[in-house]
């Protein structure tokens, strides 16, 4: 726990997020957290696959899904993963403005994704596909809702981190936070790729 010694060195180490034991612990702990989240999502995927055939009188996946909106939100979210990489590159260059700019674009894209998702859900509800309409509806909204609330949490979290970044700058204390937030954002993106494949693309098969 020799944080102070490292922090007082002039300038910033090459990988500020791993410069302290605290930072190393945080990153490893976060990877483990992602592993745990993976099994959480795996359980919800499994449930969705088991129940997606039970749409009762409501629309089936094939009748329901509209690819243009889904493709647009996929594009938006994948781009946001790229911009979060650019933000971390800014952090490694010790360029606070660059990092804040790209994180800002990242959460903006996240917000657009959420907007598209809300629009999509409203459309579905008009077609009689709700969380209570059938087991298909329940498992669909649980899976997508869990993912969507992860995106929302990420947007709020990164927003908080941006405020901290503006006040405190990039230090060995703040760098691990930015780094794990970008890890989180990538994870949420990867989950979406699976949702896009398993829910939407496989749903296109009549």
């Amino acid at each position, binding site marked *: *726990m020799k944080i102070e010694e490292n922090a007082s060195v002039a300038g910033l180490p090459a990988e500020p997020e791993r410069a302290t034991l605290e930072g190393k612990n945080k990153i490893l702990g976060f990877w483990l957290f992602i592993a745990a989240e993976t*099994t959480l999502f795996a359980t919800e995927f499994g449930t969705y696959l*088991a129940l997606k055939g039970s749409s009762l009188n409501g629309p089936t996946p094939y009748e329901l899904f509209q690819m243009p909106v889904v493709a647009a939100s996929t594009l938006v979210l994948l781009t946001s993963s790229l911009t979060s990489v650019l933000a971390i590159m800014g952090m490694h260059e010790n360029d606070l403005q660059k990092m804040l700019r790209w994180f800002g674009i990242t959460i903006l894209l996240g917000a657009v994704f959420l907007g598209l998702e809300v629009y999509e859900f409203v459309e579905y509800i008009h077609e009689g596909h709700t969380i209570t309409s059938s*087991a298909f509806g*329940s498992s669909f909204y649980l899976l997508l809702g869990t993912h969507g609330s992860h995106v929302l949490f990420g947007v709020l979290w990164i927003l*908080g981190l941006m405020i901290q970044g503006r006040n405190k700058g990039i230090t060995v204390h703040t760098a691990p936070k930015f780094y794990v937030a970008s890890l989180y954002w990538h994870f949420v993106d990867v989950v979406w790729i699976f949702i896009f494949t398993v829910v939407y693309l496989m749903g296109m098969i009549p």
Partner: protein
Amino acid sequence: MATLVVLIVFILFLAAILTGGYNRRYLDLLQENWLWNWITTVDHKRIGILYLIAGGFFFLMGGLEALLIRIQLMFPNSKFIVGDVYNQLMTMHGTTMIFLVALPLLFGLMNFIVPLQIGARDVAFPFLNSLGFWLYFSGGLLLNLSWLFGGAPDSGWFNYPTLALNDFSPGPGVNYYVLGLQIAGIGTLISGINFLVTIINMRAPGMTYLRMPLFTWTTFVTSALILFAFPPLTAGLFMMMFDRLFETSFFVTAGGGNVVVWQHIFWIFGHPEVYILVLPAFGVFSDVISTFSRKRLFGYNSMVFAVVLIGFLGFMVWVHHMFTVGLGPIANSIFAVSTMAIAVPTGIKVFNWLFTMWGGRIRFTTAMLYAAGFIVNFVMGGVTGVMLAVVPADHQFHDTYFVVAHFHYVIIGGTIMGILAGVYYWWPKMFGIKLDERWGRWNFWLFYFGFHLTFFPQHFLGLWGMPRRVFTYEAGYNLELGNLLSSLGAILMTAGLLFLLYNVVQTFRHGEAAGPDPWDGRTLEWAISSPPPAYNFAQTPRVRGLDPWWLEKHEGDGKLKPAEPLGPIHMPSPSHLPFVMSLGFFISGFGFVFHSWQVGVLGLIVVVVTMYVRSFQEDPGYHIQPDELKGVEH
């Protein structure tokens, strides 16, 4: 009603802020209070003790529930506890013992001992450690408040739908189950991650993976199991909660749902949970047996390998809980074989324990008595386990007292005896006082004899057809004697545990100081004073082999070699935020139990605000200077 509660809470908040909150004097008074110190502590040793206290309290609850069940079953056609209350008792007994007693008591030992065994000053995330405890405690409290407000859950500890859905459990009972376990489960997951990072990143120089004591190894594997087993439970509990509160149809067949989905999810969590409970006990016994046989553990590498293998196979056997569901012969056969395969690494461990004792200079202290007794119990529990893995036979055993006997043999005979052995073994390290060995022997023999008297007859009751979870039985079916013996055994076990309680009280009053190394120990925790100082090690030790303390005593000069010069030690500051956040979860859970969205959301707001506050906080901690360290030569 709900609006009223919201208003009261807000008024309390305002009152706190306007009166005491910003008054320096009250703040200082509060911060000097001993209770406040315990609430805000982030010291792994104090959190360990908190786990033991809370686990002990719930053990009392779960034990009383068991005693009431056994009194009802003592005689045929008894009318002491009938029907619904009986269902609540047996559900709460199982849920409490699994979630609120066994694992938290183990967490208590792990928290206290593992950082000492690897030569660390603290765990990786002291703040999260505290949060994990308070979440567990608030979840457990929420679950147990069901007895007072609205009725306890009553559909068994694995809570199968359709029985657990609104149609058949209309009261708030199952809501308590779902929300209480959800909150406690988050705490458990956090603690698991914490232990993993601690063991991976915080080991002292020279403490390689294959030099870690077995208790640390089993903690490591158990935490990995927690990491992968608890999130499915979280997901499943969410679905159950949605089905009950928001009218979704995950498990409602009328809405197209499927009850077997819950069974899969629950046992994908539930079977690893069994190994989560028993592996740390294996670790305790390995350390105890090697210490009291004065030998290094026989086959250390194969012991580690066996633990890892058991952890791995533990995820591939869940369907053996569902043999009678009708998943077909292929699924059943595969899972029967994988279940039987677990007997192989377990067998490796049993033989290694025996070979460790073989030729050793054995001292039968209470801890060692528990360890030796455990081997017998676990072989018996293991054999009935293999019997249950035989699918055709399982169709006979399923849902009878044979199963009850089997899992009590492994969970009491393994986990609970492991906890008791660990308590006797590490008590001097935790409190600086030895528990009295004479009372300890009374405790052991009464408990051990009572345990076999309680559960051995249940094998036969099951084979003779007595179903589990039914509140009574008819006379004339040859079930009277077995049930009477079983109930008498439960009373003996209670008497045994009362001796432990008496022992604790007496030694706290009159016990003599134990000294740093009362058992002639082998691992690092015995090299420092008892109880250890807040910083554990004045200088991080350099580890030079397996059983490092034994090595230094017999091949070195009897002192640990330091890996760093004396210097100021950085310590994390105490924090009240984990408690506040858990309070938020508790309020939220309580609100959702009663379908009060306002209260539920209010609690969640408290949680989110606390998280934000924590994120913006920068904890500089404080330093202990070298001249403040006790017992160090300058």
